[in-house]
């Protein structure tokens, strides 16, 4: 199977139908193992049991950035190769990415609540995720605002790439803004300081969630291809005067 084969929407449909069950099964298996491992993981000596929220917060936060990466690659596909499948990949990733970003926000605020005493702190990490969430919503609004899918795809691709360049700048600015004021951050997870007992469940969960995204994305792409096919057929039906009546 070469890349050009994959790029054919009909081939993609048959391939998607074949691999989706396997992918879904692998996702379910990994998530089950991950859930078991995080349930049995020990408490943190500082945070107690609330550290368990980390096992779902971090994968969601990782996906919020990973999905934007996927969209950026698809955006390149749209702009450079002008391929319709890249448009479809871009469009369907946005709502799924927005959902994961939303979950990262909510789990983050639930994790912070016991430490801060409020549900929301303008903490550097959480604030960056919030801005990312707004960007996802803006992108979805853009997709809905333009009727013609291929024109929407090009506009969205430009916005996605600008966003990808801008995200580090935003992150840096927010960090700088935040150090001026210094609220306590609970999100300390430098790789080396993290205990092995946390690291393994976290990794399993992260891989499980990534697979979950891939499953959902491929399924959503399949739906979008079908949706476009329906639209084309509707146009065809409309242009045939009364033939079908």
């Amino acid at each position, binding site marked *: 199977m070469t890349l050009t084969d994959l790029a054919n929407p009909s081939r993609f449909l048959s391939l998607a139908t074949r691999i989706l069950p396997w992918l879904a099964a692998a996702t379910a298996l990994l998530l089950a193992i991950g859930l078991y491992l995080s349930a049995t993981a020990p408490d943190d000596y500082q945070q107690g049991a609330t550290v368990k929220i980390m096992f779902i917060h971090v994968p969601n936060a990782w996906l919020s950035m990973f999905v934007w990466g996927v969209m950026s690659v698809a955006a390149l596909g749209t702009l450079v190769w002008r391929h319709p499948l890249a448009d479809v990949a871009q469009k369907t990733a946005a709502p799924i990415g927005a959902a994961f970003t939303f979950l990262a926000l909510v789990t983050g605020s639930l994790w912070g609540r016991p430490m801060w005493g409020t549900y929301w702190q303008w903490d550097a990490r959480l604030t960056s995720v919030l801005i990312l969430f707004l960007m996802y919503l803006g992108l979805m609004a853009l997709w809905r605002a333009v*009727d013609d899918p291929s024109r929407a795809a090009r506009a969205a691709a430009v916005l996605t790439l600008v966003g990808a360049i801008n995200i580090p700048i935003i992150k840096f600015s927010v960090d700088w803004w935040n150090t001026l004021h210094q609220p306590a951050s609970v999100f300390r997870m430098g790789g080396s300081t993290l205990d092995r007992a946390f690291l393994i469940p976290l990794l399993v969960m992260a891989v499980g969630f990534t697979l979950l995204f891939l499953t959902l994305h491929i399924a959503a792409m399949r739906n979008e291809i079908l949706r476009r096919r329906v639209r084309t057929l*509707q146009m065809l*039906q*409309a242009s045939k*005067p009364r*033939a079908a*009546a």
Partner: protein
Amino acid sequence: MKLTGRGLRCERGQREVFSGLDFMVAAGEAVAVTGPNGAGKTSLLRLTAGLLALAGGSIALEGGEPDLTLPEQAHYLGHRDALKPALSVSENLSFWQDFLGGDAAETSHALSVVGLDHVAHLPAAVLSAGQRRRLSVARLLAVKRPVWLLDEPTSALDTEGQNTFAAIMTGHLAGGGLILAATHAPLDVAARELRMGAVG
């Protein structure tokens, strides 16, 4: 029923378009307003529809419903189709029919007359220009009004559409309606001509 205009004067942006214009349309009669571009054909229709203010003269409908104004008893079919692309064909038509007070049973009949019944569930966005025009013609059928003011009604229609539309107009005239139409192409029904020249 008789529609008369006397001594009509029309001004657009301080420029006089026409003045001293008289016209008369009787029940069951069609009048084709012809003339070169800029003679004021569209303006005359919009004056009659109450969509432009008269600069002089008067327009009256005799024998209509006494407590309704002329615009309330008229249909105006302009260049713009008054359709929302996001709504389906039947949603568009049934909105106008609810809003203008037509008979709900007429919707599907009107759609089949203009030949759009097979696309009733599709969004109006996928329609071609000619089909959009047919859909706005369906509005004239779904809601009964005695006076039809038509601005270039057959533009964008194909031959078959023009024939359908001619039949629709004939039906309207036979039912005692009256038609005032601005047109370049000849109307396909027996019509008196009202020639408007740039010289007045």
